[in-house]
């Protein structure tokens, strides 16, 4: 890549946002292959549009909105390949953790339970919750990304938090 200002700026944004965007997309669609495609597409679009984005302080919103559009595009076409990649490969557990098999299994189990609890939330609540928790976006920023009222964001986030907390409290109490 050319080492001009635009590329440097892009790399800074990319380094900052790649992890939250990846996790946001992955939790929204639970399909690793599609998630990687969406994340790649999002950042490639960002690279192309970087010089045209006038409000540089809104790049985070731009990135999440682009990713969200792709997620919804995926939802629209989902009925053709429903849940094909939804189940995580069990072999991944061994690479992910150096603990003994029992702990690995427990962690994997816990991870799956938390993921399932998250999936139980309605999509509109889940996305607000993820945007808030992964990128710590303000209510206003989330409202801009989702193109909705700030009060609606607050109320949905409150509902999502309440539901998740009540479910997770039980799980974490059981798992110690």
């Amino acid at each position: 890549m050319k080492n001009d200002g635009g590329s440097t700026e892009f790399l800074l944004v990319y380094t900052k946002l790649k992890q939250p965007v990846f996790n946001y997309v992955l939790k929204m669609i639970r399909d690793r292959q599609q998630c990687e495609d969406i994340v790649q597409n999002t950042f490639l679009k960002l690279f192309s549009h970087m010089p045209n984005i006038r409000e540089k302080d809104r790049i985070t919103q731009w990135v999440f909105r682009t990713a969200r559009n792709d997620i919804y595009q995926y939802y629209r076409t989902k009925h053709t390949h429903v849940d094909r990649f939804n189940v995580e490969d069990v072999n991944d557990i061994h690479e992910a953790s150096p603990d003994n098999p029992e702990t690995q299994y427990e962690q994997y189990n816990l991870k799956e339970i938390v993921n399932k609890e998250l999936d139980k939330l309605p999509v509109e609540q889940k996305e607000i919750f993820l945007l808030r928790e992964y990128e710590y976006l303000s209510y206003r920023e989330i409202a801009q990304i989702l193109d909705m009222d700030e009060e609606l964001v607050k109320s949905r986030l409150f509902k999502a938090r309440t539901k998740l907390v009540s479910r997770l409290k039980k799980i974490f109490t059981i798992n110690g």
Partner: protein
Amino acid sequence: MKTDEIINLTDAYFASKTTPEEERLLFSSLAQDWEGRNYFKDSMLLKTALQTIEEPFPEHLDEKILKELQLRDKSESFQEYLHPRFLPLYAVTVCVVIFTFIFFNKMESYKSEMDKAMQTVKNQEYTIELLMNGLPTVQVKPTSQQVYKLMNN
């Protein structure tokens, strides 16, 4: 401190956007506010849960994106050179190249003509030298009057 302020400060704390002073204020306020304390506990629980399911960014994806960007950057740079604003410059460059080629050819032909002329001159010089050498030697003798003058002097 009001509960709303504690909630905002708690959010900022979990987003790592608080100063040490604000953190001290938050923790001292939490001890006095039951609702705020519950919100803090819930946030902690959610943070722990999200950390459990957080996936690291795959290295192969990083590589894929950066490689793709490098390719795009190259093709974009190439396309930039094809912009119409560069056309006059390219036209001038082509003309200069053509003229250079023509002048070079002319110069080469002049050079070979010059070499030929030099060779001819050399040959002629050689012929003249041969002719000069071929002439009989000339002996110069003084006339009788000159001999007389010399004798008188």
